């Protein structure tokens, strides 16, 4: 009988509490919106599954490998978190390699001024950074990590969190991806509020054809210059450009395909499940988490506003006007933000084809947020 009682005590049913149950529901909710609403399914489905697995008690799956860990005493996801993110931080750069292999620098080279929209949209990062700092609840490093949510770039958020505040990694990553999934609800009201109907109707000329030489030279020079200025951004920027050059060179189709398919998919599986496993009941049920959730929303909103307003300001000086809707794509969130600009543009003028134009600020946003992350790593580590 005592063995049976011991067995019952060793089951998860005894150790589970209401917080775990709520987190299981949160995990199921992520799975629901990924499958039923088709919102960021590649991210939210594995995150949801990770949340469920992490909140089942007594599994030991999250035990990190320690110096004094015995034989097989580390948990599967603890090992992935330790080596993939907190200790080596290799998964975000691998994701960037894949994103680079799918990115086209053509729209930027054809219309370089749209790079400024990507810069302006980074304003959200600094708004949330100061918001977090002014609460007095977060250190400088933690505030930087909260601010980077406004970059709307999942791998960059994870990269910076793992470097500066690993304790916030799960929360910031999930909030970043959740807002990226919800970008279709956050941005359109701001886009309609800050632009007039006639501005939304502006038609942009089709971009010129960009030669292969330009598509190879520009990313190479960009990589060299950005890394020389902000060396700490090198893990992200170098992998992004290497992936892109695999594609643009045209001579290594197998490498390009591997980077944008197999490697990206494998890294996404492990990264997203590991991020999900960081959302345990102990980390989520805190006032900090609610504040980070609000600040993340502030960051996204201000990033969008920054992009839209800068496009309007640029129009004051430009002969060929740009449609200000492409400004909101400067918040990264590739390619959802660009698609959204295109859809809102078409709603107002069915002849409008903004997708390729919006990809310019979108890619500029990726570079901009990686640069800001590099600056944060360089200056706020240890604060």
């Amino acid at each position, binding site marked *: 009988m005592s063995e049976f009682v011991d067995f019952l005590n060793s089951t998860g049913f005894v150790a589970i509490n209401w917080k775990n149950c709520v987190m299981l529901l949160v995990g199921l909710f992520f799975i629901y919106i990924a499958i039923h609403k088709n919102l960021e399914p590649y991210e939210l489905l594995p995150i949801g599954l990770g949340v469920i697995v992490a909140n089942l008690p007594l599994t030991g799956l999250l035990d990190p490998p320690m110096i004094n860990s015995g034989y097989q005493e580390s948990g599967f996801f603890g090992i992935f978190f330790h080596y993939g993110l907190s200790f080596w931080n290799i998964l975000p750069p691998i994701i960037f390699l894949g994103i680079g292999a799918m990115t086209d620098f053509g729209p930027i080279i054809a219309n370089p001024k749209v*790079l400024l929209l990507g810069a302006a949209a980074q304003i959200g990062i600094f708004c949330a950074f100061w918001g977090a700092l002014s609460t007095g609840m977060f250190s400088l490093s933690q505030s930087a990590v909260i601010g980077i949510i406004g970059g709307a770039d999942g791998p960059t958020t994870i990269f910076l969190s793992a470097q500066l505040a690993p304790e916030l990694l799960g929360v910031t990553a999930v909030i970043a991806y959740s807002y990226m999934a919800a970008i279709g609800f956050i941005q359109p009201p701001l886009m309609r509020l800050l632009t007039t109907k006639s501005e939304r109707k502006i038609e942009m000329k089709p971009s010129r054809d960009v030669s292969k030489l330009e598509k190879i030279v520009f990313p190479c020079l960009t990589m060299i210059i950005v890394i020389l200025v902000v060396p700490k951004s090198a893990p992200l920027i170098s992998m992004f450009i290497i992936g892109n050059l695999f594609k643009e060179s045209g001579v290594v189709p197998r490498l390009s395909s591997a980077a944008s398919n197999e490697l990206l998919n494998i890294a996404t599986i492990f990264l997203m499940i590991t991020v999900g496993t960081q959302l345990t009941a102990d980390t989520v049920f805190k006032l900090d988490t609610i504040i980070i959730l609000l600040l993340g929303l502030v960051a996204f909103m201000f990033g969008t506003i920054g992009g839209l307003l800068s496009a309007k300001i640029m129009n004051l000086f430009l002969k060929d006007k740009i449609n200000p809707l492409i400004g909101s794509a400067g918040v990264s969130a590739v390619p959802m933000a660009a698609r959204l600009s295109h859809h809102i543009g078409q709603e107002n003028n069915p002849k409008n084809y903004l997708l390729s134009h919006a990809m310019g600020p979108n890619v*500029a946003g990726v570079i901009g947020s990686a640069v800001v992350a590099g*600056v944060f790593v360089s200056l706020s580590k240890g604060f």
Partner: protein
Amino acid sequence: MDITIFKQAINLTLIGVSVAFGLLLFLVLLAYLTSFFSKKLLKIINDKNSKRLKKLEIEALNKSKAAVAVVTLLLADSQIRKES
């Protein structure tokens, strides 16, 4: 807020904003320069290629003219042999 932290935050913001804007502004210039010099380079390469093509064309034309002359000579020669 601690004054040291506040100063550090101010520095971080100023440096972050100016580096991000400055770099992207520089990339705008770089993109224009890349386009300009790529077009120039491609034009030079195209000119060189078209010059080489022209040279090859002339050589081929000369060769074909020479070939025609040889054939004409051979025909004339065979004609003379027949008549004699």
